[in-house]
């Protein structure tokens, strides 16, 4: 069960990010995937690679890198992991 407060915070943030896209310069445009890291590989700074989360008929491909306090880099609606890596169309 997902806490409703957490859900509201993320929903509001995602909607605000989408609204900002209409006025922001084209710096976070969705980019085609290229050179995606290998799944599950461990590095000195943490795990890097493509990983899958599944719930019902939804499958989410995610990636993580580094270690320390978690930082969720939320892509905009319709965006891929590339948006967090600074790759633009």
């Amino acid at each position, binding site marked *: 069960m997902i806490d409703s407060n957490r859900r509201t915070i993320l929903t509001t*943030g995602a909607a605000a990010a989408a609204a900002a896209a209409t006025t922001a310069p084209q710096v976070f445009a969705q980019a085609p995937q290229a050179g995606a890291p290998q799944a599950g590989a461990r590095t000195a700074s943490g795990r890097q690679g493509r990983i899958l989360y599944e719930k019902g008929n939804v499958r989410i491909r995610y990636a993580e890198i580094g270690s320390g306090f978690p*930082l969720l880099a939320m892509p905009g609606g*319709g965006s891929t992991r590339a948006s967090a890596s600074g790759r633009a169309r």
Partner: protein
Amino acid sequence: MINIMEEFKNDFRVITMDQRNATGGESTGPVPVDDPWGAFADDQLGVMDHLGISRFSSSATASAAPSR
């Protein structure tokens, strides 16, 4: 442009994902027309729960307008 993954990997455990409706992405799933942002939030929280993370910071990027 900022590469959030590279910029913060030495200080944070950075996690990102493909949205379920991303063109060229590897995530799949229906997007409910009555609450698409709620679905995205569910996915993001689901990934964090899947990883056992209850507290985290967040940053957001947004899809820009189509290039001309």
